[in-house]
């Protein structure tokens, strides 16, 4: 099968040769992880092979994009860049906003100069419709002009597109439609996405045909960078997290390297699952202790401290501090058991309490 190189040999190796062509992919990660650099490197690799590339920028104005990649020394002169950064909003009563689509600004990278000044009279606002129309026009105009299609497209970023340009629209449907549009262009597309909340299922993550995720963690005072493939349809891939670095050559990935999984967020994937298990454990222990407290009451023993401890554990459980809650609960259990044991041995013999239910020791208590 044909593959499209990402421009990073190590990453291509992880992908089993490269991306499957003509599909949209997501590049995700925290800010400053290298998402835009990868996107530019991907376009540069295409240009080097004579494949036309188009960059749609929503986060930074083109002049900044240009300045940021100068250090890498890639020849991006022939890269088309489409400025879809919104203007300063004109705060006027009458609707003076014109859509970016009607005045489109696509230029070669070497033509990029100063930042575009917002017009005094009317402000351009970006809408997904505008961006789509502009892309379509540019795509077909180029095909007419040069009999050549854009092979690689980058949208930086889809998060921005969602945030600024879909006021009042149903963003899920708009993203679905936009990704369908990109798929129909039959170009390999990278959508840069900021991962905002892992609890919310963002449309682009399940509609994309693959996800390259960047990780960034602080180890002492050094930033460690790593990359992983989270999903890749129609191909086998290396599922490990591999170390990467950003040098003056761009991104390099060591496809044989090993990343220590001590970094908090790398382990975060399984966390929710473990937490749920841990939460269950805590509940079991708390219930067991509550039964013991009842026994103690029957024997007229003072167990106020244990009661306090258990209400603290319940509170911690509610606040989702599972480890703390487990510790508190287990401690309370030990205390009350010991006390009951003593009371039972001492005369006069109390009425036989029920055998205390076994609190299950927690597997996999971490941190």
């Amino acid at each position, binding site marked *: *099968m044909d593959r499209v190189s990402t421009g990073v040999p190590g990453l291509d190796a992880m992908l089993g040769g490269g991306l*499957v062509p*003509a*599909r949209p992919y997501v590049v995700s990660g925290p800010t400053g992880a290298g998402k835009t650099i990868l996107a530019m490197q991907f376009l540069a690799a295409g240009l080097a092979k004579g494949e036309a590339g188009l960059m749609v920028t929503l986060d930074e104005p083109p002049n900044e994009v240009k300045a940021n990649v100068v250090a890498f020394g890639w020849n991006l002169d022939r890269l088309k860049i489409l400025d879809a950064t919104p203007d300063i909003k004109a705060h006027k009563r009458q609707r003076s906003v014109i859509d970016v689509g009607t005045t489109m600004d696509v230029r070669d990278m070497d033509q990029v100069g100063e930042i575009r000044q917002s017009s005094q009279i009317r402000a351009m606002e970006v809408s997904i*419709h505008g961006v*789509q129309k502009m892309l379509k026009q540019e795509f077909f105009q180029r095909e007419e002009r040069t009999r050549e299609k854009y092979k690689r497209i980058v949208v930086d970023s889809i998060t921005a597109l969602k945030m600024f340009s879909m006021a009042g629209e*149903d963003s*899920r*449907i*708009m993203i*679905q*439609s936009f990704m*369908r*549009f990109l*798929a*129909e262009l*039959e170009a390999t597309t990278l959508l840069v996405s900021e991962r905002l909340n*892992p*609890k*919310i*299922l963002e*449309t682009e*993550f*399940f*509609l*994309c*045909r693959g*996800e390259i995720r960047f990780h960034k963690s602080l180890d002492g005072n050094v930033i460690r960078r790593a990359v*992983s493939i*989270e*999903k*890749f*349809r*129609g*191909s*086998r891939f*290396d*599922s*490990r*997290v591999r170390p990467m670095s950003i040098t003056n050559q761009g991104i390099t990935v060591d496809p044989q390297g*090993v990343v*220590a*999984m001590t970094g908090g967020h*790398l*382990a*975060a*994937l*399984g*966390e*929710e*699952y*473990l937490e749920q*298990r841990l939460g269950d454990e805590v509940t079991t222990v708390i219930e067991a202790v509550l039964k013991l407290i009842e026994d103690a009451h029957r024997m007229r023993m003072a167990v106020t401290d244990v009661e306090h401890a258990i209400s603290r554990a319940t509170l911690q459980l509610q606040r989702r501090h599972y480890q703390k809650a487990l510790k508190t609960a287990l401690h309370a259990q030990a205390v009350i058991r010991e006390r009951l044991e003593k009371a039972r041995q001492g005369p006069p013999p109390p009425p036989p309490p029920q055998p205390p239910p076994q609190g299950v020791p927690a*597997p*996999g*208590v*971490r941190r």
Partner: protein
Amino acid sequence: MLHGGLVPHRPYIVSGPPGSGKTVLAMQFLLEGVQGGERCLFVALEEPPNEIKQNMRAFKWVADDVEILDANSDIRRFEPTPVIEISTEVEPARMRDIEDRIRKTPDFESHEVSVHSLQQLLKTLFIKRRYDRVVIDSITALKYFCMREFEESLTTQSFMRFLAESKVTTVLVVELPEEGQAPPESFLARGEIRLHKLRDESGIRRFISIEKYKGSSHDEFVYPFEIHSSGIVVQVADAGQAPAA
């Protein structure tokens, strides 16, 4: 794990985060049916059929007889002209007949799939011929993209009710976020097979569990599984432990 398989003629859920192997499992379910001479339908709401066909080439499967219904919405139009809903005369295509390139949205009209039209279409198809196995990939896409004017949970419920009444064994794919709550549709099916994706030093480890299975006993354990070139292989021999990270 299911103590023999699924009870026929009911809807089931396969859930999991992106990249956990849901589509592969669903496809494998249909393939099994095709090999037994059953009639199988794959309703594609997330990916165009040409890509599904290409993706399945990575596996050593003979999937030519699986029928695919392309229920992907076209690019939406912004003009005020009314959109054309997916017509109730659309026919599914056999896997072998799927073209290599993506279907293009025509310039003057675009089809939009709504839950209503899809239900109508499936109803006509089910009357015309008996399908034994159906996969909806995915319910999440249906909910997100095809219910513009409908109330989401009620409509999902009614759609699942419709499937149950059609007496077809159905696998519904549900996308889960990586963390957090399961969506409400999980409560509606007769059974849920959940795929888990965990990371540790050896890469992604995949686990499978039966969260719920009405009308049958089932295993309570979580088992590891792998995706080979022959498809999903569950290692039932060694009971999986939640890895202590």
